[in-house]
């Protein structure tokens, strides 16, 4: 092993039933470097970390760490700790009702009696040396989130750590707090700690990291020096498409008229999860899309439109008329439908039948005291089972025994049945087979021809290129660009994602 290498993982494989989470992934961490692991959700970042921290056992591959002879096996987080691998997670896993010093030392006392004076003195020293603005006797819960996060890091570092894993430590912090964490990270780097940094924020990677390892679909894309990999290239590597790949033709014409009032318009809309307010409008018969990497705030935006989260501000106009949408039922009554991103958590009522799942939204709109008769419900269900080609033994089958694609069609049927004027589809094609995907895309185009406005969100850019006539590009929870007509190319989308806020400054 080279001298400066502190950790090396070679040909790591990990398979879960039905999913190949990691396949022949290499990862090397050197002393005194900050190394980002990048990839979209599901690329294998968290599995890699969990293998390293002993939460999961690798199926094959080797792990070597400095200070241990030969190959090591990590069977539990305690063992990882023993080898000097410490982790700080996104959520702070400390006890907010104990003091800072107690949190640093908790579970590590060797003496039978706690020497408080010594504990406070030692932890004071650690805090001071790392430049953490906290008093050892202060209750942890009274510190800011950033300081709590820093205390977690201090605790990890004090446990004689060689490899520090930071799993999205900045995602709930504001800019100033992020800076504090970065200062601490640089400080640790200069002490020779190897830091593995996971984040969704591209800018942060370029601010502190020395090296990037990119994963995609559980496979290693490559390891790069930060200087040699501009942002655009990084986005390409993460998504797995090159900028030259322009073979896809965008056929959609702008069929809608912009001189009429938009079918839906929002000004300065925000919700309690979509805190950056945004402007948005859509015309009758238009298909637009929100694009951006996962976690860029696409879903939060459309949820705000539908009133799914608590709306905190903004103005909404439908057909030019001012109105309010604070709850899903209000959106539904104004002709808006929303197919949620997470089919299992937000979409299906798993124990109920296909029939009940199809009529749900229309039934709620019709009212509590006006249930459909069995035969009405049966007729609606059978109509859509036929027209969408839902494969189910009968309308009475519980939805959970259907395949993912057919479940999605049921949810789609649920909203089509309400005859929406504006339909929001958040990842309607995720995790379903290619045939159904094409069917859904065709259906979207057909709906637009009939005058329905559609917002289409997909992680697969080709899909958006094929269907959308306007693309709203998002990054780091705000809108960074809007593409229309000929501008809608993969090239342009990715460069807009990568450039981001710089675009506004130009």
């Amino acid at each position, binding site marked *: 092993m080279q001298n400066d290498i502190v950790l090396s993982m070679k040909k790591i494989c990990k398979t879960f*039933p*039905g999913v190949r989470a990691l396949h022949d992934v290499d990862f090397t961490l050197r002393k005194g470097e900050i190394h980002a692991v990048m990839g979209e959700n599901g690329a294998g970042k968290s599995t890699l970390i969990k293998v390293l921290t002993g939460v999961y056992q690798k199926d094959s591959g080797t792990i070597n760490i400095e200070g241990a002879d030969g190959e090591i096996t990590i069977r539990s987080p305690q063992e990882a700790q023993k080898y000097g691998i410490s982790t700080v997670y996104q959520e702070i896993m400390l006890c907010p009702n104990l003091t800072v010093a107690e949190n640093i030392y908790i579970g590590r006392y060797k003496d039978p009696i706690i020497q408080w004076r010594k504990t406070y003195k030692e932890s004071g020293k650690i805090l001071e040396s790392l430049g953490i603005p906290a008093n050892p006797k202060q209750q942890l819960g009274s510190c800011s989130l950033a300081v709590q996060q820093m205390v977690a890091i201090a605790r990890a570092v004090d446990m004689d750590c060689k490899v520090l894993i930071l799993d999205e430590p900045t995602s709930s912090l504001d800019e100033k707090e992020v800076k504090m964490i970065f200062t601490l990270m640089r400080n640790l780097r200069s002490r020779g700690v190897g830091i593995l940094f996971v984040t969704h924020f591209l800018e942060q990677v370029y601010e502190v990291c020395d090296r990037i390892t990119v994963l995609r679909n559980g496979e290693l894309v490559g390891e790069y020096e930060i200087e040699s990999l501009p942002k655009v290239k990084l986005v390409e590597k993460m998504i797995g498409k090159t900028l030259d790949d322009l073979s896809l033709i965008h056929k959609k014409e702008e069929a809608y008229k912009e001189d009429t009032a938009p079918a839906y318009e929002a000004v300065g809309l925000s919700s309690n999860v979509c805190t950056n307010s945004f402007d948005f409008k859509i015309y009758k018969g238009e298909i637009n899309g929100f694009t951006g990497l996962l976690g860029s705030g696409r879903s939060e935006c459309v949820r705000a439109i*539908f009133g*799914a989260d608590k709306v905190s501000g903004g103005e909404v106009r439908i057909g030019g008329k001012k109105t309010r949408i604070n*709850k*899903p*039922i209000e959106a*539904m009554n104004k002709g808006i439908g*929303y197919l*949620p991103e997470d089919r299992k*958590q*937000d*979409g*299906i*009522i*798993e*124990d*109920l039948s296909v029939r*009940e799942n199809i009529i*749900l*939204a229309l*039934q*709620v*709109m019709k*009212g*509590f*005291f006006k*249930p459909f008769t069995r035969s009405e419900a049966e007729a609606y269900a059978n109509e859509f089972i036929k027209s969408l080609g839902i*494969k189910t*033994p009968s309308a*009475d*089958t*519980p939805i*959970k*025994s*259907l*395949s*993912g*694609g*057919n479940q999605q069609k049921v949810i789609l049927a*649920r909203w089509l049945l309400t005859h929406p004027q504006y339909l929001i589809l958040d990842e309607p094609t995720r995790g379903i087979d290619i045939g159904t995907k094409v069917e859904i895309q065709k259906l979207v185009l057909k709906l637009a021809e009939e005058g329905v406005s559609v917002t289409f969100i997909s992680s697969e850019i080709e899909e958006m290129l094929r269907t959308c006539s306007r693309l709203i590009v998002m990054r780091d929870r705000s809108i960074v660009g809007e593409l229309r007509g000929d501008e809608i190319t993969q090239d342009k989308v990715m460069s807009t994602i990568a450039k981001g806020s710089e675009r506004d400054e130009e």
Partner: protein
Amino acid sequence: MKNDIRQSGRSRNDFTQLLIPIIAIVSLFVFNMLRDPSFFSIALTVNNEGNYVLAGNLISILNSASELAILAMGMTLVTSSSGGQDISVGATAAIAGSVFVSALRNGNITPPVVLLGFLACCAVSILVGAFNGVLVAVFKIQPMIATLILFTSGRSIAYWINGGATPTVSSPIIKAIGGFIPGVPVPTPVFIVIICCLAFFLLFKWTNLGFYTQVVGINQRAAHLNGINSTWIKILTFMILGICVAIAGCIRVSRLGLINHETILAEIEMDAILAVAIGGNALSGGKFKMSGSLIGAYAIQALTTTLYAMKVSSMEIKAYKAVVIILMVFIGSPVVKDTTNRLLRKLTTKKIPAIIERS
């Protein structure tokens, strides 16, 4: 796609849900048949008021299970919507019964007064239900903890209402409610249960109560995104259970002709929860079958009556009851159910090649 094998046997599970409480009742009856066939004899006798009335163990089961059956139906709804149980029903019944009795003791007991008393008692129980419901739905307190408040304090409140005494009511009307209407040989509580069943049937037919309750119980997030106000649905189910409690309380008061706040419907909450469970309904909420809980309630009463018929003393009865309940719950447990289903499937796969075609 990645489907669990477990999931495909749903239609069979629907069938087994009712099967278990039915098996419980049938096996109790078979046991009684072998033990003493006279258990089933029904006689027409003359009671103290000079009416011809039906008597016998079967009538006794039907009659005595009334309060439990009504509470079990309400408990099913609460269980489905909230994924938890209301353990305050016994104590609330004490409050409801006390309100009923104090309303009656204010003057002559005439039918309008009884009706008013019943309505007052309903109002109080609905209020209690709303209190529990708000704690559960708005403040997101675990149902068992939320209802623990009234479980603990309910009987004390009833004590205050009664002024520390155990007041009695005596009137032909009350006797008719708790016993027999002159000229009708079937006990009145049985009719009240039938009315309640009918009321629930119509409620489910004319409103979306049953549908929404299940949607909320299965997937609250999806319910919200489809425009259902799950907070209100949960509160509503607790309020409906409140009405059930009021009815059960009034029946019991009328049966005894007095209110004893310490003993009235004591520990019935546990039997009601048990009835829901024996009925094959998941205590974690979601999909429910009210008929299951209803049969469960009669199964529990059949067991109690059988034990009484065997001259088991009331002190010992609980131990015997526990043994049988363990058996029932064991048979109904998911592990046993799954194993049985698997065995059944093994036996039947050759005849029926595919249960559900998967795409």
